[in-house]
């Protein structure tokens, strides 16, 4: 019946230049046909609702599958392109090589190479990534953890309700904005401070993006640590205070050790954020692969090289473009491992103290 009605409506809409009489007749015919089909379907054992229910269930299952497809899509796209890269360059050289010089392959392809082949040794990239991540964590872990301690142990309710969303704002600022802040405001300050101590700092030093990235991940660490510290059972605090410990000693020697798995898990999540962060380092860190232990020099990171090799003018098939996928694969594996370890630690904490809201 519904089909018939819809069909006739469609005919009425479509047939603007057909004489109305014919149109009316045609509509009636379609409507009658729909009625006939509908009547034929209606039988005592026909349960339209269950049929709809079945269809709905399949549609919903299909929607749920999309997230699985996304993961597989990421894995598949990265692995297949990375494999093509490893056919051109050995995996071992990629992991252990200390020179990243993809430009040579471009020159060689253009017939202007100086004979040296392109080198894809990713060690300097990872060194830069870990240097910047380490600086970020040095900023974020103490500030984040202490903020969480203040909010859960000291702050009055009123301060809590204001401070928590304010901290969350730090996580909501787009990374491209942080990148600009790091490059235009923080980097010159670092250079000036270094100059004051007689040190020579590059404008693309690793400290500026590191600090700004640290500011960005403060809320990731403080928010999760706050939840974890809050769910340490009060009986432990009461026990400690009853034994004559001061409040500070209770926090340092009882609450924090009890919450440690959760705090480590928060730090790991923050670390995984920092490793995969792109815009801050693209805008504020260097482009030159540089294997150094001096954070005042310019260093580059994995994500910077991924962006650099995909925004150039190379063909998609070139080794440099494909190298981005190889780097992406390593990034994927590292962040996935960190996330999984973090989830496992939180789960252990939850089981130990039977907390349900984490």
């Amino acid at each position, binding site marked *: 019946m519904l089909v018939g009605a819809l069909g006739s409506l469609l005919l009425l809409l479509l047939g603007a230049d057909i004489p109305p009489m014919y149109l009316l007749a045609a509509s009636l015919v379609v409507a009658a046909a729909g009625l006939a089909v509908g009547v034929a379907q209606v039988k005592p054992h026909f349960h339209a*609702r269950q049929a709809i*229910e079945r269809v*709905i269930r399949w549609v*919903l*299952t299909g*929607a*749920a599958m*999309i*997230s*699985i497809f*996304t993961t597989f*899509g*990421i894995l598949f*796209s*990265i692995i*297949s*392109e990375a494999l093509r890269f490893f056919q051109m360059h050995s995996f071992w050289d990629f992991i252990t090589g200390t020179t990243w010089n993809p430009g040579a392959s471009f020159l060689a392809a253009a017939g202007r190479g100086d004979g040296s082949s392109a080198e894809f040794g990713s060690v300097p990239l990872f060194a830069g990534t870990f240097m910047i991540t380490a600086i970020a964590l040095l900023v974020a872990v103490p*500030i984040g953890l*202490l*903020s969480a*301690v*203040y*909010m859960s142990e*000291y702050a009055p309710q009123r301060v809590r309700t204001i*401070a928590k969303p*304010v*901290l969350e704002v730090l996580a*909501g*600022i*787009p990374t*491209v*904005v942080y*990148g*600009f*802040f790091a*490059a*235009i*405001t923080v980097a010159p300050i670092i250079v000036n401070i270094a100059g004051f101590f007689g040190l020579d700092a590059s404008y693309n030093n690793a400290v500026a993006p590191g600090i700004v990235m640290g*500011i960005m991940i*403060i809320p990731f660490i403080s928010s999760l640590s706050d939840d974890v510290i809050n769910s340490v059972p009060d009986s432990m605090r009461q026990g400690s205070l009853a034994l004559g410990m*001061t*409040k*500070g*000693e209770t926090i340092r020697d009882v609450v924090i050790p009890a919450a440690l798995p959760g705090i480590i898990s928060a730090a790991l*999540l923050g670390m*995984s*954020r920092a490793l*995969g962060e*792109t*815009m801050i380092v*693209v*805008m504020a860190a260097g482009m030159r692969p540089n294997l150094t232990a001096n954070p005042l020099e310019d260093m580059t990171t994995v994500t910077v090289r991924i962006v650099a090799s995909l*925004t150039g003018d190379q063909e998609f098939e070139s080794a440099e473009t494909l190298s981005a*996928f190889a780097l*992406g694969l390593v990034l*994927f594996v590292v*962040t*996935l491992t960190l*996330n*999984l370890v973090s989830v496992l630690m939180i789960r252990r904490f939850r089981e130990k103290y039977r907390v349900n809201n984490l």
Partner: protein
Amino acid sequence: MSHSFDEISQQLKRRHRKSARLKWASMGALGLAGLFLVLFFADMLSKGLPAFQQAYINTEVRYTEEASRDGRQAFDQDLIPLISRTVVRVIPLQLRNNPEMIGTSEQRWMLATSEVDQYLKGHRNRLSDEEKAEIDERVAAGQVDLRFNKTFFGSGDSKIAENAGILSAVVGTIMTMIVTLLISFPIGVMTAIYLEEFAPDNRFTQIIEININNLAAIPSILFGLLGLAIFINFFGVPRSSPLAGGMTLALMTLPVIIIATRTALRSVPDSIRHAAFGVGCSRWQVVRDHVLPLAMPGIMTGSIIGLAEAMGEAAPLIIVGMVAFIPDVGASFTQAATVMPAQIFTWSGEPEQAFVEKTAGGILVLLSVLISLNAFAVVLRKKFERRW
């Protein structure tokens, strides 16, 4: 070894001092985080607000016969290096379209070059001393002034600093967000409904759940690699288009919407479901007519926050090529476009001093959009929140 009471009370004092130190340290940490935020916003405002004003020169424009061939003839010769090339260039065109204007003249505010603009704002510039003297003289006469920057809000990107605007990026962002929302909202809500209301508690469901939590933690740049390899290279979606960018961002926003929707669905009490089942509703009818409407405010809040997150994202869009130079305001889902974060990134790479200000101005626009979206989400939650 025994201690006298004096020593013990000394020790106790020390312990309490130590305890107080921890309190001050933790308070200081929170204060430091707040200070960062204040410094950051102060820095952005001081750098970005001047971008909303631009230098203009009030001068007589003579629409002579010569001016219809060479726009420069319409102005005093000593003003020509100070007036933006872009307005000089359009004068012959204007005269060709309106021949009756030839022979007349008028007093008009003309867009000045970015060098004049930067000089007026006290920044580094490349003007000669004579030019500076000329400007000072005209400022005193009220002929050179900073006025509201219509160009910044009304036009697209340009390589000429004073002519660059954010509009094409705003339009690109809107179109990209439409694609993102159209894809991620229905799929996200349906996935959440499946997981909360329909799914049996088996291995398959657990895999989906773990997988969604994982997706939420994957670095955004990897979604860009997916978009490049699958959407663009495999399915042939046009590079740099809002379609490609929107699809990539949709996958990124999906976990946010799913998690928010699940929380909202879970907060609807079971008694509602029992009552609906009790009067003979099927499972889908229960969800559609009772659970979903009650969960809607929560779902909307979560989706808006997810959308705001996607709106600020730049890395995956750069990978799918949305850093294109877009001078015209386009309105097509399949043609090259740019988005606000990508526009900010492009401008930040321009060497000219005037673009620093443009970048900060763009950042202010982006931040105010994000803040209003988040505020809207909070208001929505406050207004419709129900405690069961």
